[in-house]
């Protein structure tokens, strides 16, 4: 059943993201052929062409912002509207487990985070040219390898992924807690998010001060942190985020299963 939920979750969201990505790539191509960035640097003349070029360049940047905003907005809206809104009457009477409903929302949200990043990176690759782009990519990888070691190539993406999952589940948790309020559920959700954020900061501070104290003393004594120290610090933050993710998922699941009260 999770597979079917995922299928419909993709269908419901792809109709928004695919056109956005397509538009972004079209403007990346336009920018490549009109090459407005070069003009902006070198041209002192004002003419119709330069206006058009400035427009396609601005449209491109607006699209990038739009994609990032929409990726976050859709992640929130799918949970709030499809599960906690009227559509919840359908989703919660399907013969599926509550946790499958939550998991389908989370997995597809994370999928779009990744695809949005891929779309933006691809658009940059189109504009600068594939050869130059891969050279740049290689130099970035070399830089990471030299600075933080080979392990960072796995740990860094994993760290980002866990943070994305954690951030999303914290929003779900906040909305579920907000749903417990009889009135002003949306306002309560924002309040709950602020509260969860505050609690997370306290937990992080405690963890860093207790577990991390040995690390910090070694930072002070040596000239700078070694790559192993930095990666294990990231690893520790990652583990905390993973544990908090489990807690957020469990609270969300408990509320939707036992305390659901659709309007």
């Amino acid at each position, binding site marked *: 059943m999770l597979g079917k939920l995922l299928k419909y979750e993709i269908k419901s969201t792809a109709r928004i993201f695919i056109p956005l990505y397509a538009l972004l790539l079209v403007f990346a191509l336009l920018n490549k052929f009109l090459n407005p960035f070069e003009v902006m640097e070198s041209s002192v003349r004002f003419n119709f062409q330069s206006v058009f070029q400035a427009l396609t360049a601005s449209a491109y940047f607006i699209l990038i912002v739009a994609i990032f905003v929409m990726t976050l907005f859709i992640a929130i809206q799918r949970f709030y509207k499809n599960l906690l809104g009227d559509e919840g*009457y359908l989703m919660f009477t399907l013969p599926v487990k509550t946790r499958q409903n939550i998991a389908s929302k989370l997995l597809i949200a994370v999928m779009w985070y990744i695809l949005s990043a891929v779309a933006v990176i691809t658009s940059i690759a189109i504009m600068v040219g594939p050869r130059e782009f891969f050279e740049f990519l290689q130099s970035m990888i070399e830089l990471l390898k030299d600075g933080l070691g080979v392990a960072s190539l796995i740990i860094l993406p994993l760290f980002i992924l866990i943070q994305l999952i954690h951030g999303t589940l914290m929003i779900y948790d906040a909305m579920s807690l907000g749903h417990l309020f009889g009135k002003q559920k949306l306002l309560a959700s924002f309040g709950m998010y602020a509260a969860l954020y505050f609690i997370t900061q306290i937990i992080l501070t405690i963890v860093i001060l207790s577990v991390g104290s040995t690390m910090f003393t070694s930072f002070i004594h040596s000239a700078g942190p070694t790559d192993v120290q930095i990666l294990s610090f990231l690893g520790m933050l990652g583990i905390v985020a993973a544990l908090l993710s489990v807690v957020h998922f469990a609270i969300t699941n408990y509320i939707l299963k036992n*305390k659901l009260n659709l309007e």
Partner: protein
Amino acid sequence: MSNLLECKNLTKSFGSLNALNNVNLSIDKGRIIGLLGPNASGKTTFIKLCNNLLTPTSGKIRIGGYEPGIETKKIISYLPEKNYLNDWMRVSQLIQFFQDFYEDFNRDKAYDMLNKLGLDSKDRLKTMSKGTKEKVQLILTMSREAQLYLLDEPIGGVDPAARDYILDTIIRNYNEDSTVIISTHLIADIEKILDDVIFLKEGQIVLTKTVDEIREESGKSVDSLFREVFKC
């Protein structure tokens, strides 16, 4: 257990308010039952509890031998009083959705009813009027071959002509093994199809009788009995 639906001391409170108060009920297979009561008498709360959309404060419900959960969702076909379908899908896509998730969904039945009501399966819900949306929702609900149909205000938003067709549809699509519970306050319209009635008042059952008993004992229609019991 032979009864399809059984409640024992079922109570649901919201804060200090008892929406349902100590309800005991058993419902057989093969009945069409009117769940009748004024506004805020607990009708929707009862139906939501059966659908696992609310959790009882105390007491138990069993449907087909199960407590509300995945097993009961497989055998209950539920029509909420809300527009609960997303509005960007075409009717044909919604039919596919129902077929994917419900094993008992009968696609041919759905298309047949759409044709009879003159609805186009290529239309999106977004473009439909409120009444047409309700018809689509009812068609989807009644196209399942479920054991229990829970219909919350199924005829509130549609015109009288469509009302007759819908009631007809309900009678034709349920079989002797399944039970239909209809919650409404439009009693006169549905009276002729009911076998039993349950009167709810302030979260409590005040009367459960068959329609025949009501007619024999009091010589009144359900509608006039309702007006008497719930006189303001």
